[in-house]
């Protein structure tokens, strides 16, 4: 942790090598957040790079009483939320809930590929509104406390609890609806065949 403080001070004095150390230390965290938020590798890389650039230019606003990782992840999540809002009206396949994918009869080979666990995670996250998504990712992949998520998303601790509850309920109900739909179609097929 002391090493990190030294890097921050040196980077503030204009030392780019010190900032490179910070980038190497947090590249996985920032990239993972961007990837989970945006759902594709190319956009995630660009967003993660932008997040680091913003951190570099705003380093003088960093308050050393806060955890550097929380501060950095806050910048990255805000940037990703902005990007998601910008593409809100351009509906992409990533935005579709998983049951719509699975009920699609157009490309069955793709359905099989998409049913892999990694894609399931991606599709589940894609159902959530941007700020719900950010809270869930910070909780599960970055193990941030309610307080830290509240700081990162500029809300209160109780708002974070409420957001996580709503997001989890949305995910659970979406999955249940999908399972029920699958069960109905299976029973209809069985009736048709039998």
């Amino acid at each position, binding site marked *: 942790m002391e090493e990190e403080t030294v890097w921050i001070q040196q980077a503030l004095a204009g030392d780019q090598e010190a900032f490179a150390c910070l980038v190497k230390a947090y590249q996985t965290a920032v990239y993972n957040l961007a990837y989970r938020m945006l759902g594709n590798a190319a956009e995630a890389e660009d967003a*993660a790079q932008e997040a680091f650039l913003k951190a570099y230019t705003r380093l003088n606003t960093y308050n050393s009483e806060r955890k550097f990782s929380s501060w950095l992840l806050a910048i990255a999540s805000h940037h990703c939320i902005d990007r998601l809002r910008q593409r809100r009206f351009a509906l992409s396949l990533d935005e579709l809930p998983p049951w719509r994918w699975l009920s699609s009869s157009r490309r069955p080979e793709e359905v099989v590929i998409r049913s892999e666990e990694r894609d399931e995670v991606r599709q*589940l996250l894609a159902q959530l509104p941007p700020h719900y998504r950010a809270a869930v990712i910070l909780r*599960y992949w970055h193990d941030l406390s*309610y307080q830290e998520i509240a700081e990162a998303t500029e809300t209160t601790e109780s708002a974070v609890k409420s957001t996580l*509850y709503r997001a989890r*309920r949305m995910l659970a109900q979406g999955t249940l609806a999908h399972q029920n739909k699958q069960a109905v179609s299976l029973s209809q097929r069985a009736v048709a065949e039998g």
Partner: protein
Amino acid sequence: MTSCQDVGRLMSLALDQSLTQSEARCLEEHLRQCPTCQEEWESMQRVSRLFADAPLMEPPPGFADRVMRRVAQRQARRQRLLAGAALLVVCLSLVALALPETIRWLALLWQVITEPYLLSHGAKMVAQLLDLAEALGRACWLVTTALSSSLNQPVLLGYSFLVLVLTALWIRLVAGRRGGYRPVVNNV
């Protein structure tokens, strides 16, 4: 009896291991009696396990280098902008400093140009100046022809040669000094 919505909040807290003992008992009791919530709880647990097991995504190779390249580019652009802004400030300051003096000179010049005497007698004065220049030219020519006729040709040639040599020496001295300048570099 706790409502299904309150139980939903308790489920979320339970997934984060943030329940008190009494809340945990309350949740357990409700789930035993409510199949809808039980189904939702199982679904929530499944999604939670899926997320908890999903690994951190690693950035592609060379990611940190690409970030640092962009940082360096942005820094260079920022410095260029700062230098441009500084230059602009200097130029504006110089203009601001020189402006009153320039205005004063322009006003004076305007006053001279618009002088009634100058306007009416301008052409006459120019003619007089040309006459003066012609007279000076004639005088120079007379001096030269007088020198060439009174002195011997070799003396005149020698005198001209001496002037040329002295001029060449002076040029060489000045040019040599300019070309010979090298900045001091400390090779540590």
